[in-house]
């Protein structure tokens, strides 16, 4: 059962990702990315990371992508401005490297033999487990992230001003 789900979700992820990077209009790309994130969330659930999966949908697909859509709307790009150019040198180069990466890393992965997942506790990936971590072992990084968020707020407000 699980392999089929995995393969379906994987396929969705890859296809939507590919669609995302090839669309002309940003809004199309954004929509495909949202779909991709949903598939990601599914994969996360398969990995027993339930909390993260939810957060992924809430945050990423819900907040960040909405932000993206807002900005696209704000920029109000007219269709003529959304031009593409013919294949250029950079595209080719990028494509070559990427292909290389695609084949390079997996090959090395398959060298190390099969790495099976062990059994985990049932509560693995629930909120309690994570909460325990972030309030004990990873307290400092947690607090730092709150500062980071503060900085981000201030930063984005300033960035958005018309006149400083």
């Amino acid at each position, binding site marked *: 059962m699980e392999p089929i789900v995995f393969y379906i979700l994987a396929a969705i992820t890859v296809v939507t990702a590919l669609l995302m990077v090839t669309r002309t209009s940003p809004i199309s790309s954004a929509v495909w990315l949202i779909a991709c994130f949903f598939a990601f969330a599914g994969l996360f659930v398969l990995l027993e990371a339930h909390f993260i999966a939810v957060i992924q949908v809430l945050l990423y697909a819900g907040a960040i992508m909405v932000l993206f859509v807002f900005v696209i709307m704000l920029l109000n790009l007219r269709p003529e401005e959304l031009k593409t150019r013919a294949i250029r040198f*950079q595209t080719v*180069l*990028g494509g070559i*490297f990427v292909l*290389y*990466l695609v084949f*390079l*890393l997996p090959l*090395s992965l398959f060298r190390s033999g099969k790495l099976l997942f062990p059994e985990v506790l049932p509560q693995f990936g629930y909120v309690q487990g994570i909460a325990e971590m972030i309030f004990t072992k990873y307290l400092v990084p947690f607090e730092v992230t709150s500062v980071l968020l503060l900085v981000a707020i201030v930063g984005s407000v300033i960035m958005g001003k018309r006149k400083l």
Partner: protein
Amino acid sequence: MLQWVLQYISFETFVWMILAFPLFGAVVNGLRSLVAAVRKKETSHFVTILFGCGAPVLSFVVVATVFVVLLGFTSHSMVTGPLFQWALLDDLIIDIGLKIDPLSLVMASVITGVGSLIHIYSVGYMGHDKGFTRYFSYLNLFLFFMLVLVLADSLVFLFVGWEGVGLCSYLLIGFWFEDEEKAKAGKKAFVVNRIGDAGFLLGLFLIYVTLKSANLDLGGDFFNFDTLKGYAHVLIPVATPVCLLLFFGACGKSAQIPLYVWLPDAMAGPTPVSALIHAATMVTAGVYMVARLSFLYTLTPTAMSVVAIIGAATALFAATIGLLQNDIKKILAYSTISQLGYMFLALGVGAFHAAIFHLMTHAFFKALLFLGSGSVIHAMHGEQDIRKYGGLSKRMPITTWTFVIASLAIAGIFPLAGFFSKDAILWHTYNSNIILWGVGFAGAGLTAFYMFRLIGLTFFGESNMDEATLRKVHESPPSMAVPLLLLAVLSIAGGWIGIPEAMGGSDYFHHWLGEVLAYTPVHGSHTEELVLGGVSFLWAAHFAIIAWMIYSQKRDWPTRVVEKFRRLYWLIYNKYFVDEIYDVCVIRPIRNVSERFFWKISDAILIDGLLVHGTGRAVQFFGRILSAVQSGVVQLYLTLFLLGAVLLLWKILY
């Protein structure tokens, strides 16, 4: 007085003073003239004379003192220790030191003695010239280098002096450089000299290579004369090429065929310069060099034959040209070339002492001749064509009669100096090769003839100028006249130290130099020598009288002869077109190649275009390519990141 001096400095330092005085004088006057040129002010002539004439005189005093002192040494010679080490190259060490022996003392005495007289003469001659101080600076510098040349203890140090006198010759010949012809004459002298110097250098290299390959333990001293003399046997295989190469250098310096062409042109310089450089000293450097290396030359009869043949040929050749010249200084120039030929003839037949003897007497009477001609030119306000002279004896007695004395000496009239020296040469040549003797003998006759032609046209007979010019002619001032008189005395008496035994003398000069020079003995009797001497004397005397009579009485005999031999006259009068031949065969081709190939192609296209411009353009080109990396587009930077990351990964994983 010497004792007093020796309290303060060592004898060796005292000897170095010979060189120090002229150098000091040159530097002082040189600086003064530079300062004056910058400040645009005149210098004080008195100070110039003080240093300019004081230096050679002091130098002469030292030379004389050293001479007297060395008479007390058994070997009559000494070598100073090195003053400093000039160069240290691999295994060659070049030290700067002096060698004082009879040969170098004779040369030094002549140089400083005659040189002093010429310096004094110059005070009067150049008195009104605006380059007065510069002139004395150059003259002293020349004296310094010439002394270096004759007193050097090694062939390399000699070469330093050799080059130095070449330089000073250039500076002094082209002294009035504003005139392009004069400047060109200076250049010509230097360039022709240089060609000879190339041969000299090749000779030096050959010596070095030979001695090096023999693996001797010389302590780096390859060119020291004593070393060379000691190891002469090592040089036997290369003796002929070395001697010929060095002789080629001597041809340039001493104006022999084929490198004599600069000397007639060199008459463009002031007359005292001609007297000093081209009569008494610089041109004799070649003779000195060969004499100094007599031990080497005697090893190679081939080279000696070459020397003798060229000497004799030059002697006759130059005499024929001098016969028909009309410029007083040019006549004397060709006469110098001719007499130098005699000196080389003497060297070539193994009579090295005779060559030096003739060098010494020649210095006396040739300097006198030049100074006398300077006197005449001065009186005639720059006119140098003898056809415009005539009858000057009445107005310039001292000049006239000293000139006559000098002419008698050069013609070889008994008992003046030239007779003994020339006789010594001819006697040794007679015993060596009768043809060479014949050439020399003929040349002697021509010498007498052209000298007395000169005298006849200049001083005697009716004058060829108008009354007004004749009245303005006056005798020279004492500063010029006194040296003339002193030189006249030397011209008369100077030969008496070399009177051969055949004529009742002790052949003192020969014995004095005997320790230093090689000698090829002659096998002739005293009677033969006397007869030969007598024949030479009569031969010269009769030509002298004939010439004097023809040219002073202004008979039309010369014009008739010229008419009959018009073509020959034309050839000789134009100096056998040697200069023109050189121009066509050597100068023009070189110039053509230089311009068409070296300048236009090699220089302009290859070096300027390809290398200089090309480098610039290449750098620009690659720069433009490289600057594409910094396009300012962040994506490109990211792409390059990616490239680097991929390469790293590849490296790590595989």
